[in-house]
């Protein structure tokens, strides 16, 4: 392996950006391909597929055998709101392989008692997200219903190209939210990426069922990254 390729790969991984190490198994030469880099032909098709699936494997192209080692940042879920839905979502997300963190400045809600074994920030989203920015491999679900808490985080999620952005609330609530986000400088195209009402339509009624709907929609968004314009990680 080329030492420069290793350094580049590790730098990308530390920055939570996707990269693929492409090794020619015939002569041992390798190079790093970043998400969005253009690679032509069958190799390019295989690389695009590996970025989507995260699966590593060999591919025959141009009469050679290449090994693609896909390094995708671990997807994670940031939830704005230490509410009933989040209590159900936290263990389910962890089991599904999406580590979850909760941000809620309301200290009566964000208590370790209500959220055992969950990374909990009893602070304003502005403060947490400045320290620990969102990125394209992060999903954000805003479930407080309170514009003072949700809006900043939603705008930040759109700007960071989070792979999933969901917001709790009826269509009527969301229409008002759209006005506020436009006023904050979000574009109509960005706002169209918000899933609202939140969650896959499975007829969810209870907080736990809404959590299932949110988690399912998050997984769908992650697994279909790059397959349509709306889900593009860009």
């Amino acid at each position: 392996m080329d030492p420069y390729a290793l350094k580049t790969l590790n730098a990308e991984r530390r920055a939570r950006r996707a990269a693929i190490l492409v090794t020619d198994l015939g002569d041992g030469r390798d190079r790093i391909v970043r998400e969005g880099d253009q690679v032509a032909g069958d190799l390019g098709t295989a690389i695009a597929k590996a970025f989507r699936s995260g699966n590593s494997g060999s591919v025959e192209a141009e009469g050679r055998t290449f090994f693609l080692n896909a390094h995708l940042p671990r997807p994670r879920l940031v939830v704005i709101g230490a509410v009933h839905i989040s209590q159900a979502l936290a263990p389910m997300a962890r089991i599904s392989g999406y580590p979850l963190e909760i941000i809620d400045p309301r200290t009566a809600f964000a208590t370790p008692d209500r959220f055992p074994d969950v990374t909990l920030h009893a602070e304003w989203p502005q403060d947490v997200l400045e320290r620990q920015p969102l990125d394209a491999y992060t999903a954000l679900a805003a479930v407080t219903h309170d514009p003072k808490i949700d809006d900043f985080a939603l705008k930040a999620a759109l700007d960071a190209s989070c792979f999933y952005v969901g917001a709790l609330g009826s269509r009527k609530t969301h229409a008002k939210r759209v006005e506020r986000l436009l006023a904050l400088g979000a574009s109509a195209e960005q706002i169209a990426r918000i899933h609202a009402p939140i969650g896959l339509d499975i007829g969810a009624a209870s907080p736990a069922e809404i959590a299932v709907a949110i988690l399912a929609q998050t997984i769908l968004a992650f697994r279909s990254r790059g397959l349509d314009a709306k889900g593009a990680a860009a």
Partner: protein
Amino acid sequence: MSDSLYLDEARDPLIIAEGWMKDGKDVAIATVVETWGSAPRPVGSHLVIDAEGNFHGSVSGGCVEGAVVSEAIDVIGSGKARMLEFGVADETAWQVGLSCGGRIRVYVERLG
């Protein structure tokens, strides 16, 4: 969002390999490039080895690491990459019949 939760720097084989390289050590990197049947570690898994036989990571969960390490020391000496193939259908490898019948191919190359 602590680093440890998302990239375990203290145990990540590729981060360790980079550190060894900076310390001036000779390093080999072994990578699972193909699996058949039930193999214990997925394609893309790494074992990194230095010239003294120190290693981190895993390509088989412990079954064939010894063999990979000794091959890797040769690869560090020669600079020529090797493709190794192992059956994991070793009765001594598993106590309760898990993962028997699998096979893996491991690519071993020198860093630099």
